[in-house]
């Protein structure tokens, strides 16, 4: 169901973004990557948040199934985070003719998060499966959602400012058509992440069940 929704929303969102939404005055056609880059970034945050929520549930209820759910969500978040880095890098190349800019706060933040969540996987793979691994992963995942605002604040305090700030305190700085197209794209990206998450989770659960059955037979 999520997959169908993702396909529908993403196709219509991209169509709206390319043909219906007006072109940006300053950036022209290259601004269209906005409709991919920003939804991907927000989806990555959503995945990390979902993973941390499941981690919290695990520590709270001590039910082991949350471990797999938290891990899968963070896995998806890391993939979307990497996509954010790639699309942001392409955008920077087109706009400013550089692949990487330390002045672009979102990209720097995603680099920190990417390093953090890569360490999460290192932590997971260096511990034998079991309740201890579940606990440690969950605690580290919770540190991740604390790190997001803290790093954001740090970069904001320290950083120079020339990322195009589209979302401001007094509402988004774009036309209604652009915002509508953006929302459809964002919905599609969320649905895509949900579909991938559900698919991955089913696969991992099957794996686990298969292993249990094999052990029972052996």
């Amino acid at each position: 169901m999520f997959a169908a929704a993702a396909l529908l929303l993403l196709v219509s969102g991209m169509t709206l973004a390319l043909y219906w939404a007006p072109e940006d005055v300053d950036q022209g056609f290259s601004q269209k990557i906005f409709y991919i880059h920003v939804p991907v970034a927000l989806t990555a945050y959503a995945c990390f948040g979902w993973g941390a929520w499941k981690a919290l549930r695990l520590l709270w209820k001590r039910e082991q199934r949350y471990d797999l759910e938290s891990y899968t969500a963070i896995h998806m978040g890391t993939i979307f985070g990497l996509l954010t880095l790639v699309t942001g890098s392409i955008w920077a190349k087109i706009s400013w003719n550089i692949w990487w800019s330390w002045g672009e706060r979102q990209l720097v933040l995603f680099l920190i998060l990417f390093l953090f969540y890569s360490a999460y996987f290192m932590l997971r793979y260096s511990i034998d499966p079991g309740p201890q691994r579940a606990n440690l992963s969950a605690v580290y995942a919770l540190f991740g959602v604390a790190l997001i605002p803290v790093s954001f604040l740090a970069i904001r305090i320290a950083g120079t400012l020339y990322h195009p700030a589209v979302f401001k305190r007094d509402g988004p700085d774009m036309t209604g058509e652009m915002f509508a197209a953006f929302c459809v794209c964002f919905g599609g990206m969320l649905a895509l992440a949900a579909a991938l998450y559900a698919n991955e989770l089913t696969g991992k659960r099957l794996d686990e069940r298969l292993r249990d059955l094999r052990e029972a037979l052996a």
Partner: protein
Amino acid sequence: MRRYLADAAVLARKDVLLELRGRETLPAMVLFVVSALVVFHFALPGEQSRLAALGLLWVAILFTALLGLGRAFVAEREHRLLDGLVLAPCDRSAIWLGKVAATFVFLLLAEAVALPAFQLFFSGIDGPTVAAVLLADVGICAVGTLLAAMASAGRARELLLPLLFLPLAIPIMIGGVGAATVEHPARYLGFLGLYDVLFAILAWASFEYVVTE
């Protein structure tokens, strides 16, 4: 509350005593930080920039702290002490607090050598830098101790700790370097304080889950 602090103090005293008898961690930290400063002198070619030197001071502090944190749970692991501590009739987070206090003391002592050495080798250090170092130490020890306990559960312990710690230490670096280099450091010091409070609470609350199953 009093009981809790007394428990933590006893645990911290145990670590300090162990260090006084064994002298394994602190001399290594001091020697490392001085060697690192000498290496950094040669890493900055030609005319030395004060800003670059200050930045490297923070690298030296961070890596020295990592060295100390890597040793923090060695005794517990080698003698399977952690199981005993967890069984002791005290709050589990008191174990964390005691360890943080001991690591903090070691780090302070190492910096008591490092900062004068930096002044001797490079340039003077002002009040805000010292304040930032103290604030950063709290955050480094609070987060680092929890992560050291995590890393000691894994297979690749020595490898794991820096990987887990460095991404979380980036905000500390931003705050510390900022406070040491700008004219009005209040914002950066405030940020470091915020980091300390937030992550200390998080580490304090989650330590129990790290040492129990």
